């Protein structure tokens, strides 16, 4: 666990595709299965990017809108981190293209981070750390995924869960002794719990990569599609997330009552509620965006902030705990204070 001082989260914007899909219309499951799925996961609707709209496009629009609304807030950005598992290209890094698209100076440090559900928490720690070490006055964290592009539409174990979004967060250096506390963990033993078999260097793309396999009723995919072992991910989350949150609270000398909101990665309602109950947090302190936006991978924490807490983020000083957990396996918890931040309304593209 560690603490970074003198860095504030000052501005936040999130963009989602305008195209909505209802899980009631998912064609590869029975009505009964769909009803149980929606009730259990809490996911009824999702946003799906059309062909050609990438995670970087969603993040770009979020950043561009921030620049339009608060131009002074976007000056002096010295660090740009793009966290995504759906980059524009395998080579080069997407962050560098984004640095150019956003008109940021060549002196702006720009790099990609390959993380999913824990990515927002990790991204905050990396931007804040690099700002401290480089002396940058501002840092831009772009976090997002178009997970719909890597799941098989005929796989009922993944397709009805994932949704697309991109976010932009500005961190600013501050003379105040504002502190962000972090706890970051990984467990590579579980690397296959969520993975895409083909397309990397370990198992290169080939003609066989496009051959579909029927795994079971309602689950057909090829090796370029995302596989998720639901039980393994579920057990990992139940085992690790609540103890990590408790440890960070202890490290900071805080208790549940000192935190205004706990923002969990939006995995699914069954899992998140189990974690909430383990932490003994009242439900009113745990907002959800699952119902209308599904699991948006790395963008789910900022998306939940923007869709569920925008007014209060703009008008009040808040103490927030952010918990990201998933692919890797990787999990991270952050505890920070926000003070009347610039929080733009949800952007639809």
């Amino acid at each position, binding site marked *: 666990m560690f603490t970074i001082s003198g860095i504030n989260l000052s501005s936040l914007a999130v963009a989602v595709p305008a195209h909505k899909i209802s899980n009631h219309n998912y064609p590869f499951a029975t009505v009964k299965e769909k009803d149980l799925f929606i009730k259990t996961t809490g996911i009824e609707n999702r946003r799906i990017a059309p062909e050609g709209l990438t995670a970087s496009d969603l993040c770009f629009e979020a950043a561009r809108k921030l620049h339009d609304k608060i131009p002074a807030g976007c000056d002096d950005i010295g660090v740009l981190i793009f966290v995504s598992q759906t980059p524009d290209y395998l080579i080069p890094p997407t962050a560098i293209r984004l640095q150019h698209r956003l008109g940021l100076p060549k002196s702006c440090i720009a790099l990609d981070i390959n993380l999913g559900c824990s990515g927002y928490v990790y991204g905050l720690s990396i931007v804040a750390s690099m700002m401290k070490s480089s002396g940058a006055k501002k840092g831009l964290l772009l976090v997002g995924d178009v997970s719909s592009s890597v799941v098989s539409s005929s796989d009922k174990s993944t397709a009805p869960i994932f949704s697309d979004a991109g976010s932009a967060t500005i961190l600013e250096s501050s003379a105040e002794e504002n502190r962000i506390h972090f706890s970051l963990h990984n467990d590579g033993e579980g690397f296959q719990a969520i993975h895409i078999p083909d397309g990397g260097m370990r198992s290169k793309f080939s003609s066989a990569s496009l051959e579909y396999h029927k795994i079971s009723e309602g689950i057909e995919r090829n090796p370029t599609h995302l596989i998720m072992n639901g039980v393994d991910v579920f057990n990992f989350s*139940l085992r690790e997330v609540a103890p990590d949150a408790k440890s960070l609270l202890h490290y900071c000398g805080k208790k549940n009552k000192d935190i205004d909101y706990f923002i969990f990665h939006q995995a699914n309602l069954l*899992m998140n509620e189990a974690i909430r*109950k383990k932490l003994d947090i009242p439900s009113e302190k745990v907002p959800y965006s699952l119902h209308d936006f599904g699991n948006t991978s790395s963008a789910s924490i900022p998306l939940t902030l923007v869709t569920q807490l925008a007014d209060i983020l703009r008008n009040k000083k808040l103490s927030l705990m952010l918990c990201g957990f998933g692919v890797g396996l990787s999990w991270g918890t952050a505890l920070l204070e926000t003070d009347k931040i610039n929080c733009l309304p949800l952007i639809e593209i």
Partner: protein
Amino acid sequence: MLLPDFIKNFEAEFPDLTPGTLSPQTVFKQLDSWNSMQALIFIAMIDSKYNVTLTAENLHDCNTITDLFTLVQNKVKAKANS
């Protein structure tokens, strides 16, 4: 930890089941409503009520309600002794 209570807890997670229809010998995997989602719901219930974790392999190795009960009971005992 009692078997009748365990069966009641199991039935409570299956909205299609009429309470009292399951027996210790019921092969749970043959229930119409048993599926991968229901398995996660069951695992969450066991975690919540008994504070132990069931893996996919655990479920694969069980057939009857009694098998599940014995498994959970053993895990609870092992946890208490650890």
